[in-house]
């Protein structure tokens, strides 16, 4: 299988590698093969190799995917691997995530509640209460949604789909008391109102979270 990698080291260029294909091999395995056998200078991010850390999101044949969850057998002759869009490329497939995480931090992605740490008690939650936000808690912050979002492409300050998913996830948590604080943040001019419902974020999310739906639900909360 021919692996075409868009590399970046001061300037961007394509480099081709021939990789032997084995049954069950993923694109991430192919990248490791290249680094271990063909070119040790190839830079890419990876950690868990099982689709839960979100480190290995890259653009594969034009679509952002997790390299560790993409089987090589899916493709016929050639695989094009590029860094995801809308992120500054540091080197080869490694992109700058500082701004992405800063936006995530802005929406206060944690439980805001009074807790007595001296006498801790369980925070009970019914399955129905859990179901209100569970799917949105599966976000792995891979950046695939932001890489295809047209609003994120043109406006650096836009919070982006991942941060808005987090805001919705904590707002819907029955144990949380920070809903008003978060609604104030997401209703800012760089928040939910900048989304133009292109729905690409939901299309490419490797966890099928539907960030576009979370944004619409946040808007509904704000319009009430």
């Amino acid at each position: 299988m021919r692996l075409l990698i868009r590399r970046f080291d001061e300037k961007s260029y394509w480099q081709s590698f021939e990789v032997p294909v084995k049954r069950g091999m993923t694109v991430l395995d192919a990248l490791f093969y290249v680094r271990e056998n063909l070119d040790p200078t190839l830079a890419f991010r990876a950690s868990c190799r099982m689709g839960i850390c979100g480190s290995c999101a890259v653009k594969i044949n034009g679509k952002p995917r997790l390299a560790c969850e993409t089987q090589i057998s899916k493709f016929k002759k050639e695989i094009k691997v590029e860094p995801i869009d809308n992120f500054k490329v540091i080197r080869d497939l490694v992109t700058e995530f500082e701004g992405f995480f800063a936006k995530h931090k802005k929406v206060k992605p944690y439980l805001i509640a009074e807790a007595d740490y001296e006498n801790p008690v369980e925070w009970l939650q019914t399955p129905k209460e859990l179901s209100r936000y569970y799917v949105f808690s599966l976000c792995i912050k891979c950046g695939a949604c932001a890489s295809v979002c047209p609003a994120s492409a043109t406006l650096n300050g836009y919070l982006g789909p991942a941060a808005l998913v987090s805001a919705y996830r904590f707002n819907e948590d029955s144990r949380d008391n920070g809903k008003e604080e978060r609604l104030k943040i997401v209703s800012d001019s760089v928040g939910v109102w900048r989304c133009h419902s292109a729905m690409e974020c939901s299309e490419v999310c490797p966890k099928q979270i539907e960030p576009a739906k979370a944004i619409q639900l946040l808007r509904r909360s704000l319009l009430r």
Partner: protein
Amino acid sequence: MRGFEPIAWIFQALTGIAMVFLITAHFLTTHANHEMLSYENAVSRLGSFEYKVFYFFLLLFVTFHAFNGLRAIILDTDGGMRRKKVVNAVISVIALVAFFYGAFLLSRF
């Protein structure tokens, strides 16, 4: 509701829906047959109170939808967002001028 953005968003949607019906009605009126576009027919149509009200609302909705859309496009850029107040003010002034000029022309029939 918080500030102008949610109001702008909901009215963008509502005016969009309203325009589907009003513009369809406008096309049906003006293209029902070739005679409808003749000068005499257009003047007599615009002279009637019902058509004036109809075109007043069409003008109002189109002006809001178009200029709010333009504002959103400009605010979607880094440069536009940095000058948000200026963008809002300039677009509002142009929209108001366009609307009142249109309403003035409508009133002349």
